[in-house]
C-alpha cells in the first residue's frame, strides 16, 4: 500500500512574504502515477520535498497510508526519491550507490547483493556496477538514480524533474522506460515536472499548480480538453490555446460571437450552453481546432460543426509533420495560431478561409479567468 494524502499543505520560507505553497490538498491512490505540473517557482518541488520530509511543513498535513507523517523523519517515511541532478554519490561505484541506502537499514548482505544485482539487471546496469558515476553517460546515471529508488522497495516513489538533464532523444526513451518500470512495479509515484509532454504521457492524473496553488487535478486528456482556467488552457498544449476577446450577442433565437468585425453564428444546439450569457468573454481555441479545409456544405452552422472565418496569413511555420499558421482575423488585433496539414500552399500575406470547429470552443471569464462554458 502507498496512499498519499495531502491536506491544506502550506509552505512559507523564512524571509519571504508570500507563501510558496498555499493550502494544497490532493490524494494519490495506491499504485497511481500522479504528475505535479507547473512552471518554475509554482511550488511543485516544495510540495514534493515536504512529502519526502526534506522540508519542514508550515501548515497542513501529509499522510501516508492514513498516518500523518509531518513529524516523521525522511528516513522513516518509506519513500524513495529520484533527484533532478540524480544525486549519485561521486566517490562510490554503481554497486555501492545502489547498496548505500540498504546497508543503513540493516538488511543482510546476501539480500542487498540480490536486490542490487536484480535492479541492475532490470535497468541494464549490470555491466557498469564497478564504474563510478563520472564514467557513465547521462542516461546511465539516470538509471542508477532510478535503481537506487527501486532497490529500496518503498511505498512511494518521488521524482523531481528526473529527465530535465537529458537530451531530447534520450528523454523520450527514458520516459517510456520510466512508464514501463512504474507499470511493472506498480508503486505509487509522484512526479514533478514542468514539461507538459511528460505530464500528458506519463501520469494517470495531472495536478496543475500555479503560484503555489492547485489549479486543476484530473486525467491528462480531461485536463487538456476541459481546462479550468486560462492558465491551464495556455500551459497545456503546444502551441498554447488561442485566447481572443469576443462579445456574445443574441439575435433572433441564435447566439453570435463577435470577433472584431466578424460575427460567428454558433450552431443552434450550442445556444443552450450559453443560455443567459452576454457581454465580453475570452474565447479559447486550440490550434488543432482550426482547419484549412472545411467539410462539404460548410458555412451553415445548422448543418455542420465548423464555421468559416476570413483570415490573413501573417506567418507560415512548416514543422515537417505539420504546419503552423499565424493568422489575424479582420478587425481583430490578436494573432491566432492554427495547426494544419503539412501540404498547405498558403503563404504569408494570403487571404484564407479558415474553418473553426464550433464544438471545441472554450469561454472564460475575463475577470476571474475561470471557464464559463465549453461548447
Amino acid at each position, binding site marked *: 500500500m502507498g496512499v498519499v494524502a495531502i491536506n491544506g499543505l502550506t509552505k512559507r520560507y523564512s524571509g519571504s512574504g508570500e507563501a510558496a505553497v498555499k493550502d494544497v490538498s490532493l490524494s494519490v491512490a495506491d499504485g497511481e502515477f500522479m504528475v505535479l505540473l507547473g512552471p518554475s517557482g509554482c511550488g511543485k518541488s516544495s510540495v514534493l*520535498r515536504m512529502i*519526502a*520530509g*526534506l522540508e519542514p511543513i508550515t501548515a497542513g498535513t501529509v499522510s501516508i497510508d492514513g498516518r500523518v507523517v509531518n513529524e516523521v*523523519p*525522511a*528516513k522513516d517515511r518509506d*519513500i*524513495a*526519491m529520484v*533527484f*533532478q*541532478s*540524480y*544525486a549519485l*554519490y*561521486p*566517490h562510490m561505484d554503481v554497486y555501492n550507490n545502489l547498496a*548505500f*541506502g540498504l546497508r*543503513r*537499514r540493516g538488511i543482510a548482505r546476501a539480500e542487498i547483493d540480490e536486490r542490487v544485482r536484480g535492479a541492475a539487471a532490470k535497468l541494464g546496469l549490470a555491466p557498469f556496477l564497478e564504474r563510478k558515476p563520472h564514467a557513465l553517460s547521462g542516461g546511465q546515471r539516470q538509471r542508477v538514480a532510478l535503481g*537506487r529508488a527501486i532497490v529500496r522497495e518503498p511505498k512511494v516513489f518521488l521524482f523531481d524533474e528526473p529527465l530535465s538533464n537529458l537530451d531530447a532523444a534520450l528523454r523520450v526513451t527514458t520516459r517510456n522506460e520510466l512508464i514501463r518500470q512504474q507499470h511493472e512495479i506498480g508503486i505509487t509515484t509522484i512526479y514533478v515536472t514542468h514539461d507538459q509532454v511528460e505530464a500528458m504521457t506519463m501520469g494517470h492524473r495531472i495536478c496543475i499548480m500555479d503560484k503555489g496553488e492547485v489549479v486543476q487535478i484530473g486525467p491528462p486528456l480531461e485536463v487538456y480538453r476541459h481546462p479550468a482556467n486560462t492558465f491551464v488552457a495556455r500551459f497545456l498544449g503546444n502551441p498554447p490555446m488561442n485566447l481572443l476577446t469576443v462579445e456574445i450577442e443574441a439575435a433572433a433565437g441564435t447566439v453570435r460571437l463577435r470577433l472584431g468585425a466578424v460575427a460567428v453564428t454558433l450552431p443552434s444546439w450550442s445556444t443552450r450552453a450559453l443560455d443567459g450569457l452576454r457581454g465580453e468573454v475570452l474565447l479559447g481555441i486550440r490550434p488543432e481546432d482550426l482547419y484549412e479545409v472545411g467539410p462539404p456544405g460548410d458555412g451553415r452552422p445548422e448543418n455542420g460543426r465548423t464555421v468559416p472565418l476570413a483570415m490573413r496569413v501573417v506567418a507560415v511555420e512548416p514543422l515537417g509533420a505539420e504546419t503552423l499558421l499565424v493568422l489575424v482575423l479582420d478587425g481583430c488585433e490578436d494573432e491566432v495560431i492554427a495547426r494544419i496539414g503539412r501540404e498547405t500552399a498558403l503563404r504569408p500575406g494570403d487571404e484564407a478561409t479558415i474553418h473553426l470547429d464550433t464544438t471545441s470552443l472554450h469561454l472564460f471569464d475575463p475577470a476571474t479567468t475561470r471557464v464559463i462554458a465549453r461548447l
Partner: protein
Amino acid sequence: MEAPAISFVAYVRRTPLLLFLLVYTLVTGGPFLWVATMSLRTTPEIFAAPYAFPSRFHWEKFAEAWTKSNYGTYFWNSMIVVVTAVLLLTVIGAMGAHCLARYRFRGSRLVRFVILSGMILPPQLMILSLFQILRDFGLYNTLTGLIVVYVAGHLAMTMYILEGFFAQIPQDLFDAARMDGYSDFEIFWRITLPIGVPALFTTVTLNFIILWNEFLYAVVLLTDDDKRTLPLGVMHFMGSHQLDVGMLATGLMITIAPIILLYACFSETMIKGMTAGAVR
C-alpha cells in the same frame, strides 16, 4: 610551408613568458640550490669559494648535524607538534566547515564572521595575551601549548578553504543520504569527507608547510632546548656556532626536506583542491 611559420610566431610570442619564468626560477630556485650545495661542503671550503660546486660530497655532515647538533630532537619535536596540530586542524576544521556550509541556523552568519575574522588578526597582536593564557594554564614551554596555539591560530584559514569546497557539494547529495537513512554525522563522515578529499589534501599540505616553518609563536612560547622545533634549532645553531655556515646549511636542508617531500607528493591534489569549482 605555412605550419612552421605559425609555430615560429607562437614561439616568438612565448619568448617573453619563458624569459620571465626563467628569471623567476633563478630567483627562487637559485638560493635553494646554493644552500643545497653548501650543505654538502665544509665551512672552510665555503669561505674559500662561496659559489663553487662541491669538490667532495660531505654526506657525513647530515649525520653530524642530526646527532651532535641536536637536530634529531628538533626534528621530532617539529614532527610531534606539526602532525598533531595538522590532524586536529583537519578534523575540527572539516566539521566546522561542514556546519557552516550546510546548516542555516540562527546566528550562523555571525558565527561564520567571528570564526573567519580570526584570519585577519596578525600573530604579533595576540602573542602577549597568548603568553599569559598559556602561563595561567600551565602550558607555557610545552609542546601541547604550542599545538593548541597552532590549532587555534590556523582554524580560520582551514575552515575558510574547506567551507568553500564543501559549499559546492550539491545539496541533493545530502538530501539523498538523509532519505537513505543516514544521520547528520554519518552524512559528514560518509559523504562530505570522502568527496572533500582534494580540499582536505590542500589544507593538510598548506598547514603542514606553514606550521613546519612557524617561528614567532615557537620562539616566544618555548624556551627549553630539548623542546625546540626545527626553525628554532636553526636559529639556535646560528647563535652557538658563530659563522659555521656549512653546518647551518645542512640544518636548513634537514628542515626543508619533509616539506619538499610532502609538496612533491600532494602538489597536484592540492592544486586540484584549490581550483575545484573554478571551472564548471
